[in-house]
């Protein structure tokens, strides 16, 4: 017997995560290694389970919004609008034109943020640290814009049933165009640094392969499916909101590997910018806050008059409403929310100045009243940054949802992940994982 015949080959079990610097998001991947090749893998999730669905059942419809922020925390605006859309469809509400445009604009900004984060992080994990810094720099500009509009960077809670929290700031359109111009330069820069980079190309091309049939069988959507060559995008195939008004293309890949998914994401950001440009051009002005006679009342004065009971004549006037009563003069929800007093909180000025608005406010705020969709069920789905984001909401006619189910876009991808990485090297696990863009917040809920 020779020496070599006596040596035995053993596989090694390598545990990646749940707290590993390269797995951005808490997840555990048990990889069985044959040398450097992954021969088997098992993915364990649930480390970030917060009971989102149970929490939603315990609160009112409006109270669900802060929880939806925390699903996909890179593009929380899309989650917000998806949930609002589900409840609106349940109630048969239609939001005003201006609000639809605001929702589209904010969603597309979020999508760019999400893709920038994904590409930046993937590049960093392959050693291209400066790309990460450039991408995050651009994301920061967009987040500043988001902060200006919503008041927060991440936990925005901007959507409301039947509208949004507040209208856009006065100089938003100009700011947004400026940010878009700068961001598009950054995207070009990233493009030049990565797309034809030998190291990046070799690490991404042919890695993390998934065929079209497999991707469909696993129920994968979004850039991951489009990278495998399926032209499926909810914005085009089941146009919701006002997406049918915009002219944009759906990029698809041909190989179904990491590199294709990277290219798809790069192109999607440019397409998002196209949508944004069109939306900014088309966005109508909301109704102004003047009454039929053109008379405008100063908000503080109107509130004061109301507090002293001097409501005579006030009813006919619409207040010039502002959110803070401190003189920001920002157009408030009058112009951006559904004209449906049962579902929408009246502006504070009106609550102070007339009894109808006060009762209206009471009916919505007090427990047991609130937003009450009719009995029924709805599955409302939008194109999230990672794929189809769906909300299945069941109403029993009370002010609390009976059941809220969130279909997270990265759930099917993570289910398939253990199959995708088999046959690749252990070092390839990281870029493949990066191209999934797993968000533990929505995966574990």
């Amino acid at each position, binding site marked *: 017997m020779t020496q070599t015949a006596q040596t035995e080959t053993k596989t090694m079990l390598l545990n990646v995560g749940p707290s590993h610097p390269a797995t951005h998001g808490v997840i555990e991947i048990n990889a069985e290694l044959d040398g450097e090749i992954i021969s088997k893998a098992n993915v364990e999730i649930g480390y970030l389970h917060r009971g989102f669905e149970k929490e939603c059942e315990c609160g009112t419809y409006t109270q669900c919004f802060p929880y939806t922020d925390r699903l996909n925390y890179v593009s929380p605006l899309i989650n917000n609008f998806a949930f609002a859309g589900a409840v609106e469809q349940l109630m048969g509400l239609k939001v005003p034109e201006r609000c639809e445009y605001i929702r589209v604009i904010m969603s597309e900004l979020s999508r760019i943020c999400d893709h920038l984060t994904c590409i930046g992080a993937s590049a960093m994990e392959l050693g291209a640290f400066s790309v990460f810094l450039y991408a995050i720099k651009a994301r920061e500009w967009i987040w500043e814009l988001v902060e200006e509009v919503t008041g927060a960077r991440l936990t925005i809670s901007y959507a409301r049933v039947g509208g949004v929290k507040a209208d856009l700031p006065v100089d938003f359109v100009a700011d947004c165009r400026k940010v878009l111009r700068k961001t598009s330069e950054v995207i070009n820069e990233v493009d030049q640094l990565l797309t034809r980079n030998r190291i990046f190309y070799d690490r991404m091309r042919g890695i993390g392969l998934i065929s079209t049939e497999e991707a469909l069988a696993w129920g994968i959507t979004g850039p991951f499916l489009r990278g495998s060559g*399926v032209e499926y995008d909810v914005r085009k195939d089941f146009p919701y909101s006002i997406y049918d008004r915009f002219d944009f293309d759906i990029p698809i890949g041909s190989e179904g590997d990491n590199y294709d998914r990277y290219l798809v994401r790069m192109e999607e950001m440019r397409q998002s910018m196209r949508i944004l440009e069109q939306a900014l051009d088309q966005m109508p002005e909301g109704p102004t806050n003047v009454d039929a006679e053109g008379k405008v009342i100063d908000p503080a004065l109107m509130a004061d008059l109301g507090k002293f009971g001097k409501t005579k004549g006030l009813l006919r006037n619409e207040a010039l409403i502002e959110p803070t009563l401190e003189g920001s003069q920002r157009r408030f929800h009058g112009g951006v929310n559904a004209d449906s007093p049962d579902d929408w909180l009246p502006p504070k000025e009106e609550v102070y100045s007339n009894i109808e608005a006060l009762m209206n406010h009471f009916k919505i705020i007090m427990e047991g009243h609130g937003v009450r969709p009719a009995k029924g069920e709805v599955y409302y789905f939008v194109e999230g940054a990672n794929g189809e984001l769906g909300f299945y909401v069941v109403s029993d006619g009370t002010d609390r949802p009976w059941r809220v189910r969130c279909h997270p876009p990265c759930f099917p991808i993570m289910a398939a992940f253990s199959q995708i990485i088999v046959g690749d090297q252990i070092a390839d696990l990281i870029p493949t994982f990066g191209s999934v863009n797993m968000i533990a917040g929505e995966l574990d809920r």
Partner: protein
Amino acid sequence: MSENPLLERIRDEFGDSLISAHQLDQDTVVISRGAILELARFLKEQLGFEVLMDLTAVDYFKRRPRFEVVYHFLAMRGRKRLRVKVPVGGMEPKVDSLTPLWPNANWFEREVFDMFGIRFEGHPDLRRLLLYPEFEGHPLRKDYPVDKRQPLIGPQD
């Protein structure tokens, strides 16, 4: 209702097992528990619903049968959608697994088992997905108290 060719086709094929159908927000059929695997195969192979988009359950608590397992299918050709609901109940609610047809049913069904305690027959590896093995109870059931303490966490001081 009768105008819809898709629902008509399903009615022709599964008339005995079909409990009801509607097309309020999207085409929906409610089918009895025994027929789900057959219906799913029919949808996949005959009608082109190749994507199992979502699988979840709802606890109606006072209704009998108590639970409803809800499937959302998508047909890429023609971009059609269909919701299938299966009422299940009893002390040990169970329904046939769709894992032979779609690989992603594996995790979806594990999650439903985890959250509702509905068993899927024919599932290769039915264990908790999001929660840990020592967890007691199924939290999305309506009779699970929201302030329940778990053994590993210990009582509140």
